[in-house]
């Protein structure tokens, strides 16, 4: 019997659905998370997340193939449409036939998932370079706008690299943020976020970077198309070197610095800017 599963959208929730489909001998026709009930001709059922069920499914998969377990985890973070159904089919095939087909990338069940995971990995790889942090009075803050849910993967990279720093990284697309303090990182939903404007020091380093960026290009080799194919425009929105003049102008009023920019969990960058003459309005 075909059925649509409603679940909470979490990885464990998805695994619980897989568990239920076997327990009830149901074939899932689709998965649905979130409020919006979908009208459909199929029966639908709400599956409650059960950590124990989830763990049993994952153990079973990992026992058959550790790579499949990794693929499942990663696949769940991708923006593949109907990713749950695709992942379910991989699990079903694994249970039915064993892990052999996983070695053949062109396998029709595997291929869409592998492609999606590759897209995710590619996005993670690019973002490792393209993420920009600002120093907000000692706390580093950055924003990204990825297609896939990259934070769980990307977070590990930055937490290792900047393990002594306090930082956060906000994902505009999925409205969640990674928070890191020495020794600890978490990802939390965050509905809205507005980056605080730079203080004098921050604005200065931004300007230095922009100047470096503009100077390093060789005029005789200019090649906008090559640049675009290496660095698609959709990433430019959060990169310092492509921001307009106001991005490089310091706001020295304390109110502006500790405004809504400080996310919950990390104390607001409260250090008032050093007194002195008002900042020069130098743009790039």
């Amino acid at each position, binding site marked *: 019997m075909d059925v649509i599963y409603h679940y909470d959208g979490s990885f464990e929730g998805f695994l619980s659905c897989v568990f239920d489909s076997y327990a009830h001998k149901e074939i899932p026709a689709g998965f649905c998370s979130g409020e919006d009930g979908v009208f459909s001709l199929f029966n639908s059922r709400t599956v409650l997340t059960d950590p124990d069920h989830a763990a049993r499914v994952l153990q079973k998969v990992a026992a058959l193939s550790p790579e499949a377990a990794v693929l499942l985890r990663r696949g769940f973070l991708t923006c593949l449409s109907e990713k749950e159904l695709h992942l379910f089919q991989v699990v079903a095939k694994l249970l039915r036939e064993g892990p052999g087909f996983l070695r*053949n990338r062109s396998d029709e069940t595997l291929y869409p998932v592998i492609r999606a995971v590759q897209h995710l990995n590619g996005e993670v*790889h690019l973002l490792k*370079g393209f993420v920009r942090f600002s120093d907000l009075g000692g706390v580093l803050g950055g924003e990204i706008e990825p297609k896939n849910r990259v934070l769980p993967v990307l977070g590990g990279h930055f937490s290792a690299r900047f393990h002594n720093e306090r930082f956060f990284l906000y994902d505009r697309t999925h409205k969640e943020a990674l928070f890191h303090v020495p020794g600890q990182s978490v990802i939390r939903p965050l509905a809205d976020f507005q980056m605080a404007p730079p203080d004098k020091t921050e604005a200065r380093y931004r300007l230095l970077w922009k100047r*470096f*960026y503009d*100077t*390093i290009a060789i005029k005789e080799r200019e090649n906008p*198309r090559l640049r675009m194919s*290496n660095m698609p425009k959709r990433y430019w929105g959060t990169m310092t070197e492509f921001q307009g003049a106001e991005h490089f102008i310091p706001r020295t009023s304390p109110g502006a610095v500790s405004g809504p920019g400080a996310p919950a969990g990390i104390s607001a960058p409260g250090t008032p800017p050093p007194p002195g003459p008002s900042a020069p309005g130098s743009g790039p």
Partner: protein
Amino acid sequence: MDVLEKLTVLTDAAKYDAACTSSGGTRTAKKGYIGNTSTASAGCCHTFSADGRCVTLLKVLLTNRCVYDCKYCVNRRSNDTRRAAFTPEELADLTIQFYRRNYIEGLFLSSGVFRSPDYTTELMIRCLALLREQYRFNGYIHAKAIPGTAPELVERLGFLADRLSVNIELPSEAGLNSLAPDKTKGAILAPMRQIQTRNRQSREELVKYRHAPRFAPAGQSTQLIVGATRDTDFHILRLTQGLYDRYGLKRVFYSAYVPVVEHALLPAKDVKPPLLREHRLYQADWLLRFYGFRAEELLDEGTQDFDTRVDPKCSWALAHLDFFPVEVNTAAYETLLRIPGVGVTSARRILSARRVGPLHIDNLKKLGVVMKRAQYFLTASGKMAEGLRFTPDSVLRGLIAAERPLLPQQEAVQLSLFDPAETA
């Protein structure tokens, strides 16, 4: 002069160096330090400049003051240009602050020869020591070893940097003598040999003592200028091969000569940099490093320069049609790698997939094979791509057309001089 201005002058003076990669090094995160270098094989690009090149490192000169007078160089003594110098403190601060903001993967430090090679190297060492010891910087550092520097100083530099490089720049001794009168082949090769030897010793020590200090763990590289002298592709590629074989270099970079100065011995200022030629050399270099090709297979005394119309691998395939078609279900890895359109990744995928069952033509695209190129050169389960009819001429035309959209814009423009219609 303030730091912003210095940065402008010293970036402008450093931009012709092609080496900008953090690959080959691993530094895992260390407690109390900032940074790591975790990029396994592909380097991490932090941005791409307007010329489409990857920017990984803060690439600057410590100073563009120089007592040498290399004819091709903007910083040469006799050139009238603005001079500047960072203090080691300024540069260390810039590096750390850029790194924290994730602008860069690390520092690429080069310099003009200020007073003497030794004096310059000492300044560089001061800056790097500041970074490593005071700021506890654990990110990537690439430093230039200046020909003529005392071995003790090269030694200290090597323990601070991940990678060292000595730029050969001019691919022949004759070029060196006429265009870089202050440098000799011997002065360039001596530090290269020293770096190779120390790097090997340090690896051996690391096996014995886990905490032995690491000497330039990401090895060494060099750069060759293409188009400033009359050296042929064959000459350059054989030099490259020798450097990989005998000096254990990790990379050789090629830099299309941009005429920045007027000189009787150099191409005139309105000559365009030979970008397509540079591109072909990089492709050939790739074939040497990952595909098991030798320079002598790609070029010879009779054909000393690469065909500009197709890439070196296609060029080789067209000259060896009797080698093909290759059957993907049975061919060895090395043989698969010879097929145009099959790369290291897709060859591995073929090996893995064919253990599950026989492969057919329509599997290959999903395994990452570029069929537009590969179709002429392979069979799968005995069959070629359906409906494929071709002659050597039409293969050439097909290959030219398949590569064109992949070429960087200017290369494509240069290439359109050879319109496929003319070659038919």
